[in-house]
């Protein structure tokens, strides 16, 4: 018997987040926001100008994703919604976490040390979802409540998704300074020597 993976409801409390273990598989239910390059830039700009952002990011699950959406009548539908490369947000995420306090960042490929540090300091985790598996990911969303900043273009807008079984998500950076990606990198460095020898390189 495989044990049932944990299911968490958004918004996430700091307790929820701190209790998550590295490598654990979870699913989410509740509201999930999409946001990538432009959302990070815009939100931080709004803050600087003292303007209010259109959604509440505190405790939220922010998904690095630019989905394919389709309007059927008055309603939006998710066609495909896999993750985008999170490292593009490396330079903005630590500040975003500090100012907006999301509970989870969802993406692929992991993030750099300043983000790992910010996650530890403010209580946030990084949840990895399989890149390219966009149909599987979209199946986790039962409906779409709306869209903000649509003028940024379909991939860059904030889509407000209602998840009922969004996942599987792997806790790849926990709220205690640990990262699966960092662990893999250490191993890769060891393996590099073997690969070099095979290629006849020093």
């Amino acid at each position, binding site marked *: 018997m495989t044990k049932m993976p944990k299911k968490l409801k958004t918004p996430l409390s700091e307790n929820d987040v701190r209790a998550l273990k590295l490598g654990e598989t979870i699913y989410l239910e509740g509201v999930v926001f999409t946001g990538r390059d432009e959302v990070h830039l815009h939100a931080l700009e709004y803050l600087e100008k003292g303007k209010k952002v259109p959604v509440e990011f505190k405790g939220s699950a922010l998904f690095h994703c*630019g989905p394919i959406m389709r309007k059927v009548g008055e309603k939006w539908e998710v066609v495909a919604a896999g993750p985008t490369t999170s490292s593009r947000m490396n330079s903005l995420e630590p500040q975003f976490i500090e100012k907006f306090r999301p509970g989870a960042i969802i993406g692929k490929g992991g993030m750099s040390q300043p983000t790992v540090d910010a996650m530890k300091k403010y209580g946030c985790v990084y949840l990895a979802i399989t890149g390219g598996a966009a149909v599987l990911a979209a199946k986790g969303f039962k409906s779409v409540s709306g869209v903000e900043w649509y003028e940024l273009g379909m991939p860059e807008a904030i889509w407000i998704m209602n998840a009922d079984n969004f996942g599987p998500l792997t806790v790849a950076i926990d709220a205690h300074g640990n990262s699966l990606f960092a662990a893999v990198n250490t191993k890769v460095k060891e*393996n590099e020597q073997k690969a070099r020898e095979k290629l006849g390189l020093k």
Partner: protein
Amino acid sequence: MVTETDIQNAVVELLRKAVVKLPADVEESIRKAYAAETDEVPKMQLKAIVDNIDMAIKGNTPMCQDTGVTIFYVTLPKDCRVNVEKGIVEGVRKATKEVPLRPNAVHPITRKNPGDNVGERMPYINWKVGDKDYIEITVMTKGAGSENMSQLAMLTPSQGLKGIKEFVLGAVLRAGSNPCPPTILGVGIGGSSDIAMKLAKEALLRPINQRHKDPEIAKLETELLEAINMLGIGPMGLGGKTTCLGLNIEYAYCHTASLPVGLNVQCWAGRRATVRISPDGKTAYPTHER
């Protein structure tokens, strides 16, 4: 006679096939990687990929939300009278709405998105004239996550074969988890800076289970692939046996004082599709017959 509308309709179908279903060689290698993986975390990543491949086909839905920018390779018959370019452009517009594709093409500086994947020099079309009586159109829908990891090196001839190996290995290490591994790598050697990059992308058009016809190049393809798969970057950079599904090399003669090397990185979703349009307007899709 083939009309512009025939081309347009064929391109819509071509794009639909390309984004929904992988060519047989790519799908097979992913299933093999899944079967071979023993660790729990990478196995789960590959399971998600395999499940997603099946779900995309079942729902006739794009497998990945990043349906890329559309890069075309066209071979025209000698006496082609139809405006193939216009057919392709209108086909891309229509496919963006109908498939649907994500509107990805934006102005490079203002970042304005026209919403239909059409803009200055996009779709991008590579032209050739062939000796067949049909029009052959191949499309690659190239996502940004992997394309962003592509690189060019202008090596010196003295760096030679070792320099080529260093460059490819170094680029794979730098790309790490970012390009949605397990990747497919296209390497272009020689020519000039632009030719090396062009060959690197064209190398991705060859099925990954076919080695180069030159045995020395074929050996280098296998050697590099095996070395990369020793790194343990694994699916999505979370560790594991398969970092790279296939590596293809194309080369061109180059200046005696140069050694350009291009690397084009493709994610696991190596999407390419070909259509042949006969003079009577009939279409065949050789990459998507199964």
